């Protein structure tokens, strides 16, 4: 899974969000490292919808503008969980080989 995809799915993990909120959340989740822009976000969202990982939750009109809220589908939740578990296991393995596990931040 690409990092862009992973971050978008993570942004939607606990709540539905509209486009701008996803961009802000991605920046927050990545600790400011990834600044996602509209072109990247919508190309990714289009694919994720086609793949059935993300769906439209609802639409609102705010200041005469369409706001569409996106939400994870059950398949999206499952895929994100699987990917997070995999990354977590890899990270644990790396830290333990580096003898850093448990010693972080102390």
């Amino acid at each position, binding site marked *: 899974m690409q990092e862009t995809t992973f971050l978008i799915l993570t942004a939607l993990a606990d709540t539905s969000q509209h486009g*701008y909120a996803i961009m802000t959340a991605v920046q927050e989740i990545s600790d400011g490292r990834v600044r996602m822009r*509209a072109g990247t976000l*919508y190309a990714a969202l289009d694919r994720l919808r086609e793949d059935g990982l993300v769906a439209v939750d609802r639409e609102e009109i705010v200041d005469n503008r369409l706001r569409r809220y996106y939400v994870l589908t059950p398949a999206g939740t499952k895929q994100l969980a699987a990917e997070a578990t995999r990354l977590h296991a890899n990270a644990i393995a790396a830290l333990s080989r580096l003898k850093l596990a448990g010693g972080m931040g102390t």
Partner: protein
Amino acid sequence: MTDSADLERRYSRLVAWYPAAFRREHEAEMLGVLMDSARDRQQRVGLADAADLIRGALTLRLRIPAQAPGTVAAAIRLMYVGAAVALAGWISTVVTERGVRSAMLRSAPARWHLMLVHITAVEVVVPVTVVGWLWLAWANGRGQDRARLAFVPYFGVATLALLSMLGIGAAVYAPADLISLALLWLVQISAIVLLFNSRSAHYYRPAEASGS
């Protein structure tokens, strides 16, 4: 207010590069997000935003539809390879033309005219075939049967070009041109095998009747 109207017009000119189906679905929403992320009194589209929008449009236009069977998806990837090889071949033809010329004038001057005709044809025709490859990739991705059939004469022309290049001594005097033609020919025959594979057949439907 006029600042933001100008900015929005500039953004929508970039969004116009996206596929029509995508724009119907996302244009208004995307402009909203772009305007939300704009700074106060911003008038011009930032370079990074513009590059990101163009990249997004390219990604969507070159994307292989998820419902395409594996054989068709592989054929489309080959078509992108074909476009890249054709472009590389074109560059190499332009760059090596002088070397080919001096080698042939020295040892096979009688055939140089034929080679020159060939090289000129390549320089003119290949840019068109790059566009052709991209169109074939797009139309095959949408399951258009005529795009699959169009591949057959495309392949015929490449075979003729390869044979005629061999006939005028390209193996000796213009090896780079010959290699790129041979690569293209291999890409095309592989794509044809994939497109006419029985697993691809159900994805294709006849062209819609015109005027309906």
